[in-house]
């Protein structure tokens, strides 16, 4: 079955504020969409709505395929060494003990709480990569990453795109990949 993700006439309200309205979006397999917009325009909320973690104020989301989310929470146990923390998700996902790239090999014995922002982001990317979902939702995937790691994320997303996967990413920085469709949330402000 091919992965697909579409949203019709989405609106999002947080508290008393309407963040965006009448947002429709169809993402084809093998397509990468970047959501841009200033802080507070609802990029993260949109990703959480697409993931099914947040109910939209109006509109509908249809998705086929497994969803993986990468946001500011790495969902790794702080007190555990990185290797053990990743093993938990490997066990939940039932994925084999694959090679962990992303420059994490020297960090496997380091407790997660000692990792820097960028290292946590790499660890979360490794978790997402091992999970191997059809639909990737990446919230600010480049935050805290150095230029090498940022280029790695571009390569990862490109490989995912080639495998007919879907990727929606929210970032206000330019993403290091060609052929990314841009959607500016400012155009959907009420």
């Amino acid at each position, binding site marked *: 079955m091919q992965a697909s993700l579409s949203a019709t006439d989405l609106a999002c309200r947080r508290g008393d504020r309407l963040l965006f309205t009448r947002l429709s979006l169809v993402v084809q397999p093998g397509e990468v969409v970047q959501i841009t917009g200033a802080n507070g325009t609802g990029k993260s909320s949109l990703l959480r709505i697409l993931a*099914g973690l947040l109910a939209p104020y109006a509109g509908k989301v249809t998705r086929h395929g497994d969803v993986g989310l990468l946001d500011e929470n790495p*969902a790794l*146990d702080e007190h*555990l060494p990185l290797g053990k923390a990743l093993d938990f998700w490997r066990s939940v996902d*039932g994925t084999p003990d694959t090679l962990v790239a992303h420059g994490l090999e020297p960090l496997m014995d380091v407790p997660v709480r000692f990792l820097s922002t960028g290292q946590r982001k790499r660890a979360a990317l490794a978790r997402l990569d091992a999970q191997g979902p059809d639909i990737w939702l990446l919230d600010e995937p480049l935050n805290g990453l150095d230029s090498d790691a940022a280029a790695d994320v571009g390569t990862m997303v490109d490989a995912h795109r080639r495998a007919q996967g879907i990727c929606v990413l929210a970032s206000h920085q330019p993403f290091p990949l060609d052929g990314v469709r841009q959607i500016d949330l400012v155009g959907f402000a009420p």
Partner: protein
Amino acid sequence: MNGPFLTLLRRDLRNLLTGAHGSGAILPLLFFLSIAMLYPFAVGPNPTLLAKTGGGIVWIAALLAAILPLDGLISRDLETGFFDQFRLRGISEEWVCAARLIAHWLSFGPLLILACIPAAALLGLERQTVGLLMLGLLAGTPGLAAVGLMIAALTASLRSGAALAGLMLVPLALPILIFGAGALARSDPATLGFAGAISLLLVAVAPFAAGASIRAAREG
């Protein structure tokens, strides 16, 4: 579904026993024993008085000790995104909470029941009272764990959730205390049946109530 459940249970047990989430297993135990130790100092070493009221104090100590692990029982995983990741993998909040409830009880219940023996020695309780106490706690602590889990889930997204959780446990745990400690006053094990029944009901409801609370917290 079986595989993830055991994996969840193993992680929860490790986190709760070592104190990575909540207080760990040793702190409630020491707290429980220190109340049993303080009581004779406070009321005086009158053996008749201690034997008569000591059982009730052990129950109060158990109830208060059950508050300690609530901080971080749910809120930690909510903050670090674990519940979001479980949801995306089709593991429902109810399922996660069922595992959490078992691990939560295992991390303090059996230890408190065993600690009744040294506590009884400190208070000079009679053998029959100790038996009723241990049976009572066996019937009552699962209910205390269930109430605690529901409250922890309900207060997980609040700023001063931990303090509030402690306060909320007291009235909600009252029925368990009445029937559990009531068995001591009447020396009647039949009353423990009520404590056990209340516990069972709470255990059955807790994963659903806690799951719904977590979903509500996510929307907030």
